[in-house]
């Protein structure tokens, strides 16, 4: 089925679990700001812990919780599908770009995309628009112009 030229992949569309997962992410970001007074932006937290900035213990514990998620999930259920499309070189290049880019851009999908857009921060709105557009264009170039 096609809407305005975009073919929707209904088979893989998961509206309810994605909405529910999003709500949990929103709840986690809410708890972190209400109790800890901090923005749940993963690249910022990680960069700050690496640099030895203020609040290292709290930030490190948030990241530890994030790391433990698949282990806790595994106690109750089978982990959802995790499937990669890239080889080691692609992962290496992608990781480097994500690391450098999120630090220069002061945030990623969580800090800008969720927390910043929720606050209607002009910087976050521009950043989110920019990385989404770059993501769409990159996939288009790699899949439809270069690859097959």
């Amino acid at each position, binding site marked *: 089925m096609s809407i305005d030229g*975009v*073919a*929707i992949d209904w088979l*893989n*569309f998961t509206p309810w679990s*994605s909405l*529910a*997962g*999003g*709500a*949990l992410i929103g*709840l*986690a970001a809410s*708890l*972190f700001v209400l*109790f*800890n007074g901090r923005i749940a932006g*993963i*690249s910022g937290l*990680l*960069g700050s812990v*690496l640099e030895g900035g203020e609040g290292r213990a709290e*930030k490190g*514990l948030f990241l530890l*919780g*994030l*790391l433990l*998620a*698949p*282990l*806790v999930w595994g106690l109750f259920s089978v982990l*959802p599908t995790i499937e990669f*499309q*890239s080889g*080691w070189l*692609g*992962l290496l290049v*992608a*990781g480097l*770009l994500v690391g*450098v*880019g*999120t*630090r*220069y*851009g002061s945030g*990623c*999908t969580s800090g800008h*995309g*969720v*927390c910043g*857009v929720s606050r209607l*921060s002009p*910087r976050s709105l521009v950043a989110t628009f920019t*990385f989404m557009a770059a*993501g*769409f264009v*990159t996939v288009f170039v*790699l899949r*439809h112009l270069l690859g097959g």
Partner: protein
Amino acid sequence: MRKLTALLAGLLFGIGLLLAGMANPTKVLGFLDLAGAWDPSLALVMVGAIAVAAGPLAWAKGRAQSLLGAPMQIPAKRELDPRLIGGSLVFGIGWGIAGICPGPALAILLSGHWQVSVFVLAMLAGMLLFTALERRRSH
């Protein structure tokens, strides 16, 4: 107490990413592939997250302290600059190559896939490179 809420918030964040499908690079790339068979699920992740977080964040903005007495640290900067846009552009390209961003990378690091270890090591190297360049700039 704040350490406990930090740990709990991080755990919940990770569970949310796993449930949402954000932790599956194939699904993320399916969302970023507008010209292929487009999977719009991840737009709903943002909708769900923003619907829940907007109220608490707006409340927090007007406060000097958190409920547990921590200083409220919400970015106040409003100016757009080339670093914000250039950095976001570079991040988006990296995101589009592998379908992995920082939160999901950490949320699946201990899931037993070698690919994510390569990605996370490279991401940490990128972040350290940023720090090294910044320190050089300020000297």
